[in-house]
């Protein structure tokens, strides 16, 4: 460990960002990501209206992930990763 590292606080010692700061830093990116998801679902819907419904487990997983986004519980990123993981 060099001298610089020794004087730096560990990650655990870093003060958490305030809620306001989190929104300041990440709201626009999250807003854009939500629009991307909405537009992708619209695209899928238009395709299904034109060419018939698609039976694909990726669609089911995506809907499950959207439920996780909307629920009140935390740990969302890990739970969504598990939805998109191969089971077993």
């Amino acid at each position, binding site marked *: 460990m060099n001298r610089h590292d020794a004087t730096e606080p560990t990650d655990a010692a870093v003060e958490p960002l305030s809620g306001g700061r989190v929104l300041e830093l990440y709201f*626009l990116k999250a807003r854009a990501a939500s629009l*991307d998801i909405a537009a992708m679902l619209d695209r899928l819907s238009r395709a299904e209206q034109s060419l018939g419904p698609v039976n694909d487990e990726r669609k089911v997983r995506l809907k499950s992930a959207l439920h996780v986004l909307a629920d009140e519980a935390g740990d969302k990123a890990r739970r969504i990763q598990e939805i998109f993981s191969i089971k077993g």
Partner: protein
Amino acid sequence: MFFIDPHVHMVSRTTTDYENMAMAGVVAVSEPAFWAGFDRTPSAFADYYRQLTEFEPLRAAQFGISHYCWICLNPKEAEDSGKAREVLSLIPQYLSRPNVLGVGEIGLHKNTPNEMDIFRRHVQLAIDTGSAGRHRLILIHTPHLEDKLRGTRLIIDMLKEFGSAIDPSRVLIDHCEEHTIRMVKDAGFWAGMTVYPTTKATPERAVDMIEVYGSERVCINAAADWGISDPLWVHRTMLEARRRGHKLRTLMKIFHNNPATFFGGHLGFAIRPMDVVHRDLNTD
């Protein structure tokens, strides 16, 4: 494939951007007057208008790109009415310069009464300085994010106040997104879409809008400026359309011919729409 970039702020870009754009098929750019990131004095506007009409055309010409521009006071600087009126008085002398397409990008930022007053004055200026019974072309900025929906409605309502003095086919309302593009097209105006992924559209969403609302009276730009932006987002949008199977003729229409048609409303705009012809060399 040739491109006309309908909205790019080249004063904020490097000469390398011009070079990259030329290598990527850009033959002309249209540069609206905009906010510099800080509020300027009236004399700074005079210098800025000289930069747009004298210096940038020379920089672009090094790479075979024709540079056109628009002159106005950007809505972000319209809140100080006294200064705004002083700058407005400077504008007419620049409107007749050879590379000036019209009045723009005027519009609204926070939808305030002062911004609306200066918007109406700009529209009146476009009418008063027109010729042969036609107002000058007008390019309009719609507000960002949460102010866009209301601001776009206000802009269309204000344009309608001018009645038959405003020809919607000579007005492009820019930065349209999913919640505003229909009202703009239904009212007969040209609709601009800006690919600026965090705050405006993405290539995927821009192509979606083309598929849903059609390619008539639509232009796609990147509004590249001093923010996190890139003029080649226009090309990424073309690639997205190509990936979905859109034909070369459609791409040429969206990225070259539509801007050429709208800008062609100004007699000084020299680039004409092109057709894609597949020839059988064995029979020529």
